[in-house]
């Protein structure tokens, strides 16, 4: 059931996964990244963020790399990268379909 849920990433999940593409990140970094990348269009509450991180870690999409004081840093795994790539392909297909139908 859990895997089924992650077959389709929500927008916030997608952006959290996107945040890990170039570097390792902690919770605060992810919030900053999403805010900057979407120009405040997408906001992520702490409850949502930590639920996503816990879920991603459980699904082995990310792994914890360091704990410095209260800060926990994560990096994306190969599985996470694959899911991210697949999601991009899906979104591209959606966009292509939508553009093809435009008058």
């Amino acid at each position, binding site marked *: *059931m*859990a895997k089924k*849920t992650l077959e389709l990433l*929500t*927008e*916030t*999940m997608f952006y959290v996964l996107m945040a890990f593409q170039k570097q390792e990140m*902690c*919770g*605060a970094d992810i919030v900053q990244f999403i805010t900057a990348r979407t120009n405040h269009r997408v*906001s*992520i*509450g*702490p*409850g*949502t*963020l*930590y*639920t*996503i991180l*816990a*879920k991603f870690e459980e699904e082995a999409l990310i792994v914890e790399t360091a704990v410095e004081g*209260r*800060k*926990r840093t994560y990096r994306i795994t190969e599985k996470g990268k694959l899911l991210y790539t697949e999601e991009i392909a899906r979104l591209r297909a959606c966009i292509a379909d939508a553009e093809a139908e435009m008058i």
Partner: protein
Amino acid sequence: MKKIIRLLPHSIYEAPALENWLSAQSEKGLFLRSANGFFAIFSKETPQKTTYHFEPITGMVAIPPQELLESYAAFGWEYVTCISGLYHVFVNKAETPEPLHTDPLVQSLAYKKIEKKVNNSLSITAIMLVYLFFEHLLLEKKDVITLSACIETNVLLFFLADILFVILLFFARLLPCLHIRRQMKAMQNGSFPAPKSSRKRHPHSGYCMVGAVLCLGFMLWFPFSLTQYLSPEEAAAQQGHTPVITLEEIEGLPPKYPIKHTDESTYFQDYLYSEDSSLLAPKQFILRQEKTPTATESKTSAYLWMQYVNVAFPALAEPLYQEKIEADLPEDAVLLPSAATTEADSLQIYASADGTYLFLRKDTAILSVYHEGTGDPVAYLDDFLLLLQEGEPFLPE
């Protein structure tokens, strides 16, 4: 600081309803300090409008990480307590608090662990119920225990309490599943949290659990409230009988309990029920005989099964004692016609030419005497009957 304890009006699995209730309490000046599945402890302070949030615990430990606490605090949410290892409770005193969750689908994921927990709990209960059901059927089929026997033995109340216990236990497990699924569905539809105006009350699974515990308490207490199931010794003593001779006084008898049937030539008797505090009715003592001639040996063996069933708890009935006693009879052992030897139809005597007799009393299953000797079996029968008469106070009616 004055502490006030209140019963939770909703099930612990109805987080939005509890959040609303706690917010309403804060407007009355009651602020949550700690809680469990049934009670909440408040401190009395100046009334203030606050918002509560139940965050399902997703990690393995019930202590929230400091990083999470700081992130929540940055949004004005302060940690209050942990409830039943299921939720972290946060409070926000702002007029319009920043939402902790911005994605309802993700929020529903947070409830997955709780859903899994209650589903597992329900599955275990369901397996237990199926097991009890089939065990009960099996026991009925084997005539070990029957509903009619329960009624006859005046333990109908106990039987009903047993059934009620099982039903309540099942609902105590089922309702949380329904609550959690309803919430997750609401979240996935984006209608979470529940509107504050919602006053709809759902069955409280905690009350079912309390009911189940009360039933269990009743079942534990019930046997002690009965007098009609005193052991034969106690019953005889209550009626003023003084035993002429007790079977224990007969030389060579094995200890009462547990039965150690070591020597076929010794007397064998059992008063197991008199040692057991559970409800046992005489009718539940069952003696089975089976003669199993083997192909290779012209030898007949008699097997006795003595089954003692706890009729106080029919759904959980199981033989308290079951022992196969193999009494190898001589090859020429024959079953003497009871009419020829005794007026008691229930008495069967096996006899052989070498003077070995096996006396079996079927109706009570109390006594089986394996007697060795020579001579007229009827003489031994007289001894046996005398023994029965002398031991009458010890036999169930």
